[in-house]
């Protein structure tokens, strides 16, 4: 289980998060919704180690997670994507995928020069997995294109692929469907369902209510840096407070 307990964070005078507590269980998809500026992305950045919270704890499977260390959080098995996809634009799609490989011995200088055989073996293994993954994501034909030349939707798929290369126990996904065409969205929903069935923890920020209703098992609603409601998608839909603060707006805003 991935849990964030009583997280607070302020920037200057602005309180972005005021005592937020959420939990996400393995084999479930947990949705985070709320109006813009409600603190969803900030919360994801805290869990991912990009921001250091003023107070609060993070745990994964009962073990405390380091705060403010994105590299250590990733090593602990938590992968994440960003709202605006982060990619190495001047490397090919395939190279980006390989960069997702965890604990690559070919990235250690000593192994690189002293154990070339071992490096080659792991590189071949990673290449095979990357090839398979790209095929699964429908990006097989783009393997040797520069990542920067992909469309926005394809870039989002690629970041997902890089994440999956590291076989993470938990995935933090920031608006994977925004700006993506309907065909790719369907593909992503199918992918999310598979990942859930594999027993992973998934936390999802999304404005697309249809997608939330489709894939989420549990939803937390944030507003003004606080959790104002939680429940199944159906419960949330019927919640008065939520309707007033958020769902009152057109669903696709």
């Amino acid at each position, binding site marked *: 289980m991935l849990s964030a307990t009583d997280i607070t964070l302020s920037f200057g005078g602005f309180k972005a998060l005021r005592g937020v507590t959420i939990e996400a269980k393995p084999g479930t998809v947990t949705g985070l919704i709320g109006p813009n500026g409600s603190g969803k992305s900030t919360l994801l*950045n805290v869990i991912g180690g*990009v*921001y*250091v919270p003023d107070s609060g704890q993070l745990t994964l499977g009962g073990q405390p997670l380091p705060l*403010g260390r994105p590299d250590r959080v990733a090593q602990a098995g938590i992968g994440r994507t960003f709202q605006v996809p982060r990619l190495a634009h001047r490397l090919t799609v395939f190279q980006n995928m390989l960069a997702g490989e965890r604990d690559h011995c070919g990235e250690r200088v000593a192994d690189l020069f002293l154990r070339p055989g071992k490096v080659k073996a792991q590189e071949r293994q990673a290449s095979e997995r990357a090839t398979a993954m790209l095929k699964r994501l429908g990006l097989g034909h783009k393997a040797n294109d520069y990542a920067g030349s992909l469309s926005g939707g394809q870039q989002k798929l690629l970041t997902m692929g890089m994440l999956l290369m590291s076989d993470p126990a938990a995935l933090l996904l920031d608006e994977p469907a925004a700006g993506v065409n309907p065909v790719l969205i369907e593909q992503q929903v199918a992918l999310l369902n598979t990942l859930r069935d594999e027993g992973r923890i998934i936390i999802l920020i999304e404005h697309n209510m249809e997608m939330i209703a489709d894939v989420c098992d549990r939803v937390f609603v944030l507003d003004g840096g606080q959790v104002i409601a939680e429940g199944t998608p159906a419960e949330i839909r019927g919640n008065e407070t939520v309707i007033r603060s958020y769902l009152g707006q057109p669903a696709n805003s």
Partner: protein
Amino acid sequence: MIQVLVNSIVYASEIAIIAVGVSLCYSILRFANFAHIQFAVVGGYLTYSFATIPGLALPLPLAMLASAVVTGLMAILIDILVFSRLRNTSAEGKMIVSWGVALFIRSIVAAIYGGSARVFDVPSSTIVVGDAVFTTLDVAIACATLVLMVALHLFLYRTRVGSGLRALASNQELAVTRGIPGDRLIRLMWFLSGSLAAIGGSLIAIQTRLQPSMDLVILLPIFAAVTIGGLNNVFGAVIGAVILSLAQNFLIWIDFGSLFFGDPWHIPTKFRDYVAVLALVLVLLLRSRSSAAAAKR
């Protein structure tokens, strides 16, 4: 003690007037412009030329004014030819290009004027206050800087154009969508920082001497001052210059020998430049500590 203060003020004045241009540029275009140092060198040489070329021989204040105008225009020209075409290049890229520009200007100046030192012949008399000795020139330099800094402050905070510049510095996109003429203001910024640097460079040249290699002498103190003040804070650079100058002069003045060992011993004057780099490192260490807490981007 007074002597040290006087020395500090004069040195801080010369550094500050050049350093503000670096932070003006950084605050608006977001890159460290190393060519700025050369604006000061060029300014010094132009002042020298305007003041000494037979037939022209302007009085020194007029020569400095003319030099400031020409250097300011040169800064605009460089922006038109180089930096305006690199607005979308990364900050690192612009910084590297600014070195290319610096290398070019420096070598051209050295090719035209040669490597030997020139000295301004400025009449000045000595003033004695208590046990401090200084010259009317020192007073003039400090006053000139004070006047210019106050003028710059009034310009930035009391005029429409100035507030446009500040808006540009705080949020370029927003400022431009609000109808602030970005390009024209950027040109103005180049003119301002170029001409201020020219005056600063002239003051240093008048007080010490003029040489193409003076850029290396002032490079580190200026960037240390700007870093202490926080790169994009214009008047932070002035405060940085004062802090740096005080640190440099006091460290040399303090008799560490008597303090610790009983025999008088001072840090040799030639170690002044170390203070600049040391200050730079200290500030960076503190900053990396504090920025570790906040996200970098």
